[in-house]
């Protein structure tokens, strides 16, 4: 057998062996991976809704029990009402309800950081303006820099921040470069959190996609704010 024929045969065999191996691994492991991902998403929704603190260890079973007991998967209609049934133009909302009353609700947020799309959930209280929690569960940012978005020190800052300014207009929550106390005046500090040093682009990305996604859910949030004001 000439050497080039041998090379072709070897390459072909190699390709077949490797692809069969990887396909086999991917298909057999898929159910496990999917159930892990689902549990991870549920855990993040629970964190955004303040149902778990993120410190205690929970098994997949615990997560799904708490989730099924407290969280309703609903859809927001274009005029900002909630519907139990899926509607084509509706947006997903995860509602924490207690005896039929809305306590808080989480919305999915996602957008570009520096290297990757960041996925997370933002929880808002029933008043439609106060952030109850935020989580980022999937990203490909540099660990130690942009990757800090998934760390508690960064996420905890969002708790209690407001998505509206003192005049009541929607402004979203922004990430500043450096410290909030150095960058914005005291009356605006409620709308901003500290940035991540060495990760300016990731911080800017978070600011812009939070604004974009909160804007989408503004019909619901503003309706809740009006309800709160009327009471």
């Amino acid at each position, binding site marked *: 057998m000439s050497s080039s024929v041998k090379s072709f045969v070897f390459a072909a065999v190699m390709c077949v062996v490797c692809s069969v191996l990887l396909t086999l691994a991917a298909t057999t492991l898929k159910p496990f991976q999917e159930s892990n991902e689902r549990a991870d998403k549920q855990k993040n929704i629970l964190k955004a809704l303040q149902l778990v603190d993120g410190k205690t260890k929970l098994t997949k079973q615990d997560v799904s029990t708490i989730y099924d007991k407290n969280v309703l998967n609903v859809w927001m209609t274009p005029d900002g009402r909630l519907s139990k049934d899926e509607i084509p133009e509706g947006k997903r909302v995860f509602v924490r309800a207690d005896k039929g009353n809305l306590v808080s609700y989480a919305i999915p947020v996602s957008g570009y950081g520096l290297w990757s799309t960041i996925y997370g959930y933002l929880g808002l209280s029933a008043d439609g303006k106060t952030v109850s929690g935020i989580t980022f569960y999937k990203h490909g940012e540099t*660990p130690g820099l942009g990757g800090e978005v998934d760390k508690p020190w960064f996420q905890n800052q969002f708790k209690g921040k407001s998505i509206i300014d003192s005049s009541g207009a929607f402004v979203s929550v922004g990430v500043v470069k450096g410290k909030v106390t150095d960058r914005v005046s005291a009356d605006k500090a409620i709308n901003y959190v500290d940035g991540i040093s060495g990760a300016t682009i990731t911080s800017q990305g978070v600011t812009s996609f939070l604004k974009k996604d909160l804007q989408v859910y503004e019909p619901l949030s503003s309706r809740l704010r009006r309800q709160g004001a009327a009471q």
Partner: protein
Amino acid sequence: MKLTKTKEFKVFMEPISVANPVSVLVLGICSSLAVTTQLIPAFVMTFAMTAVLACSNVIISLMRNLIPKNIRIIVELTVISSLVILADQLLKAFMFDVSKMLSVFVGLIITNCIIMGRAEAFALGNGPWISFWDGIGNGLGYGWILVVVAFFRELLGSGTLFGFKIIPQAVYDFGYVDMGFMVLAPGAFIVIGLICWFQKTCIKES
């Protein structure tokens, strides 16, 4: 025969000391910059890298008489990337938390020049058993540099070690500021440069 005199011990120890892949051969610098901002990822990367390096060395060494010379690089790369993808899939299925922590590092292992370098320079010309030890040695040689660099970068850059606050709040109150420079890639360059210099001087003297 004493353990320290065996050939296996020699190929295991050399990359950890005098023939270190990072500080002497200056390989694998790209990932050393990326994963050394904190200690935990540095440790995890060391384990992942050592495991993949040992496996790829063994597999390539087993096939060394079969691989046609003209396509050997592609074959090596195929073996390495298949191993890395397999490891990634297994982690995602059974150790989801670890796989989340590793995030982009798993993919980074494929591009690590040390793995290709050892396959080319060692596994193609030696038996599987000794190649295995060469892989372990190089993985750990790479790893200890990572850990040392990460130690300095995390301590100086963030004031923490393994995520725990080390520098007391009182020092910050006095006006101490974390060195933001250490968090960025150039900080790693400086630390690695100092290690290279230190090691070159030591080797010359001994």
